[in-house]
Structures are given as structure tokens and as C-alpha cells.
């Protein structure tokens, strides 16, 4: 029986269930294509953490870290570079992609298409997280097969740490993209911010808890994220670094609010 209620064809819902989900699936597919077909993006995002891990892993040899219960240095580097990989995909790459697309007018064009905003941005973020996931798998595989590092003892804690970090750094990437008016500046600005904070966070050399550097970097989310990813690998301590995860999540929520407030679709150069 056909409904007697006349519906206005011009009134549209914001969500059409399956057909909208299929639309998002298609967008994620094209986002992935666009990422992997961009040689520079793919090489920098995936290649950088990998090359660093291999170089540092090779030079670390059998060094051990006294301040972390005398574990092998490479056992510290693998979780560190997993964190680096996630941040590189979600923060740096996403920020650069968003600035470029905004300034090229691509965001504006998509905004004016019938694709709902949530589907448009949702697929960009989902695709970013997918790249981060690939990154994590590659780094773990190289750590395990190349350097004989043992995998996280608590998989659940590891996955939670990576997901919380992935979401938070995605939000941070979106937030910083709103502060960069010019696509030429996008790469340098995000990379400088990122690498300085990475250095201070003790990615290259483990830093002592309670030291001045540790106190300084404990303000930023990067060190907390590294600590949270490291915890499930560390047999001598609890796999759940709740305190650090909470700080990463707070940064994520704040960045999310900031990005929503500042986000713009049109290029900055058009006023």
C-alpha cells in the first residue's frame, strides 16, 4: 500500500542508511587511490618512519636502555616509530592534504556537491586512519622480522593506544591545517612543528621520567602517545598507560573543537 502521505521531494534527510554508507565506501576508495597514486605523499608518509626505524635499528645493535629496565634499544624504537608513523599519517600528511585541497578549491567544490559534509570529511578521516593502520602493520612486521623485536604482550592495550592516538592526531592535523594559509608553507610548517616536538618527546633517545625535558614535553601529546604505545610492549610495567592516553585524548577533543571553529572550505587567497 502506497503511503497516502505526500512527501516533498525537495526535502532531504541527512542520512539515507545503506546507500549513504556505500557512498562513503566509494569516497574512501578514491581517497586511497589518490593517496597511493601520489608518489611523494606515499613515500614520505610510509617511507620516512620505516627508513628511520631501519637506520636507527641497525645502528642500535645490541644497546640497552638502563632507564627502561635495561630492555634492548630497538625494543624501544619499534613502538616509538609506530607512534611516529601514526602521527605522520594522521597529523602531517592530513594537514598538508587539507591545506592543498582547500587552496586549490577542491574542498569548496566538494562542499557544493550533493555529497553530505559528514560523508565528505568522514571519508577523508577514515582514509587517513586506514593509511595509519597500514603503517602500523608494516612497522611491526619490520620490527619483528628484521630485528626480532617481540610484539605487544597486550594486543588490546596496543590497539586502544593506536586508535586513540590516530583519532587525536587526525583532529590535530585538521586543526593545524586551518592555521596555514598557503600550500607552499604546509609541508615546512607541519614538519618543523612535528620534528621539534618529536625530538623533545624522546623518540630518538629515551628520556628519563621526571627530567626537565620530560616535564616540558609532558605538556604536548606526542610524548604521551609514545609512552602509551610503548606500554603494551614493556613486560615490566602495566600495558595500559591510562594517564597518557587521557592527555592525548584531551588534546584530540580540544583540537576537534578548534578545527570545527576555524575550518574553512574556501581558499584563503579569496579573502
Amino acid at each position: 500500500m502506497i503511503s497516502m502521505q505526500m512527501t516533498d521531494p525537495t526535502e532531504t534527510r541527512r542520512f539515507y542508511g545503506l546507500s549513504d554508507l556505500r557512498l562513503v565506501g566509494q569516497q574512501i576508495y578514491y581517497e586511497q587511490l589518490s593517496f597511493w597514486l601520489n608518489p611523494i605523499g606515499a613515500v614520505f608518509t610510509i617511507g620516512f618512519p620505516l627508513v628511520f626505524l631501519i637506520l636507527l635499528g641497525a645502528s642500535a645493535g645490541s644497546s640497552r636502555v638502563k632507564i627502561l629496565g635495561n630492555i634492548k634499544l630497538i625494543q624501544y624504537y619499534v613502538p616509538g616509530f609506530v607512534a611516529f608513523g601514526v602521527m605522520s599519517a594522521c597529523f602531517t600528511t592530513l594537514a598538508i592534504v587539507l591545506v592543498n585541497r582547500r587552496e586549490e578549491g577542491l574542498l569548496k567544490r566538494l562542499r557544493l556537491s550533493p555529497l553530505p559534509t559528514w560523508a565528505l570529511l568522514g571519508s577523508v578521516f577514515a582514509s587517513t586512519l586506514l593509511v595509519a593502520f597500514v603503517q602500523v602493520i608494516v612497522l611491526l612486521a619490520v620490527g619483528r622480522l628484521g630485528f626480532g623485536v617481540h610484539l605487544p604482550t597486550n594486543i588490546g592495550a596496543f590497539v586502544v593506544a593506536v586508535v586513540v592516538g590516530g583519532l587525536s592526531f587526525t583532529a590535530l592535523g585538521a586543526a593545524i591545517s586551518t592555521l596555514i594559509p598557503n600550500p607552499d608553507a604546509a609541508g615546512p610548517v607541519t614538519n618543523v612543528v612535528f620534528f621539534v616536538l618529536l625530538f623533545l618527546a624522546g623518540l630518538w633517545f629515551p628520556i628519563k621520567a621526571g627530567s626537565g625535558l620530560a616535564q616540558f614535553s609532558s605538556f604536548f601529546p606526542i610524548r604521551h602517545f609514545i609512552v602509551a604505545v610503548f606500554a603494551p610492549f614493556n613486560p615490566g610495567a602495566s600495558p595500559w598507560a591510562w594517564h597518557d592516553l587521557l592527555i592525548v585524548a584531551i588534546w584530540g577533543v580540544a583540537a576537534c573543537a578548534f578545527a570545527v571553529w576555524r575550518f574553512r572550505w574556501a581558499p584563503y587567497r579569496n579573502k
Partner: protein
Amino acid sequence: MRKNAGPAVSVKNLRKSYGSLAAVADVSFEVEPGEVFALLGPNGAGKTTTIEILEGFRSRDAGVVEVLGVDPDNRRTQRWLRSQMGIVLQELAVEPFLSVRQVLTRSAGFYPDPRPVDEVLGMMGLADKAGARVKTLSGGQQRRLDVGLGIIGQPELLFLDEPTTGLDPSGRRATWELIRQLGGEGTTVLLTSHYMDEVEALAGRVVVLAGGQIVASGTPDSIGGRDTGVATIRFRLPDGVSAADLPVAGQPAQDGEIEIRTEDEVAVLHTLTGWALGRHVGLPGLTVRRVTLEDVYLQLTRDPDETGRTRQEQLR
């Protein structure tokens, strides 16, 4: 699918300011379904702001706007409206690393009843580039792809913001043909352009904007009194004839030709050619030129002069 039987676009007393700057100050016009309508004006005249308000990209400060019968600001009908509109922006906005076919297929997926991708490739002359990456295309080819993305959803209403900027002459002609074809199919086209010949060749009606206001509107061949205004007659003096011998008063122009400006060119030409026939002399290089759309446009959009007169007053 239309919500109403009225105009495709209706704008009444539209206003939009950025801070203290009135980008659009009291603009009203209507676009009929199936019409090719042009907004003409210099940079900063308010064209893009007006179009962005119609597209639902920008909100307005005041005025009534209906696009295909709905308010573009109404979020409840926005998704429907966007499925009925095609938009070509000023900047080239195409994903650089995907192929032409991938870009078109992706966009086709947004619309309920898209044009087949191969048809669009053919219409835009990009069939042999279907597999090429967007970044390897020439500027003109990218622009054609951009226009192709605007029409893939079979839009009821197409916004074209300077669609031929950056195209070579043959690319421009091809785009004109396409716009005529779409107009013939009943698509309403709202066009902005800097090119007078483009507006003259395509638009049924034109509105000239300057400083956020409409300074003239009408058909391209009547706007600003083009059909009734002054005509310029020019020729070279025949051998052995001086300007004083002419039956009508003329001014020597800079290049040595004689120039006569008149609102009654038929009578002046009759006198002049009758005189020449009687004297058995020619009028070498004789031309009659009515003001071009470009002349009218430049006059209409001139900045307010030192006496502080508005643009409309300057025209009187």
C-alpha cells in the same frame, strides 16, 4: 524535477557586507528556466559573492533568494538542491593524481541520475585522455574536465564562473558550443565572464554589476542604449578633397581618417554617399561602427569620478 513553475533563480533586494564593505548592495534579478543569463562586471563588483549566495555557499545579510523554488540557505532542502545544480568555480579544482575517468566516475556517484561518463568525455573532447592523470593534462584540458564535472549530474541549473578563462580560442569555441547545446536541452545557465564577446555570443540577458549594484540590464545588444546610441562613421578623405568640402561636419581622427559621430547614421550616410556619387569620388575605408558591448561595459563600470557622481549619474 522542480519545486515551482516560476523562475529558476529569483533574487530580491539582496545584500551582503563584509565588515563595512557592501559587496552586494540591493541587487534584484530573475532568471527564467532554460535561459542563458550572464553576470558581467569587473573584479570586486559582487559577481562571485552573488553566485556564492545562490549556490548556498555563503549566507546573505538581507533579501529574498529562491533557487529552483527553494531557499539555498535552507538546510532541509540543501542536499536536494545540490543534486540539481552544477557548479564550475573560477579556480581549477580537480584531484591531480586520479585519472580523468576516475575523477568523473567519482563525481557521477554523487548524483541520482548522472550523465554517463563516456558521454561527458565525448562532449568535453577528452575521450582519448580518459586514462590520463589529471596533472598531465594541459590547462585547457583541465578546464574542460572541470566543466565536465559541472554537467555530469545533468543539472537543472548550471553555474559557470568564468568558464573559458585560460582556454585557447578553439577551446573557447568548443565550450561555447557546449553551453549552447545545454541551453538547447533546457538547462538554465548562470554565467559570469570578463569577455564581452562571450556574453554577446551566449547570453540571452545580461546584468552588469559594479560596486555591488546593478548598473544596467537587458539583452546584450540593447544594453546601455547600444541599439539606439551614437554610431561612428569613419573614412579617409578622397584625393583632392578637403574636410571643408564635405556635406557633413567631421573631425579628423588621429590616424588621419575623418570621424563623424551621429545618432542618425542612416541620414548622414545618405547625404555623404549621395555627395560622393555626385562628385565621382570614393570614400576609402568607409566603416560604420556602433558602440561595442565592451565600450558600454567600460563606461558602465568606470570608478566613480572626482565629482563624486555615481555610476548611474555618469551615464546620463
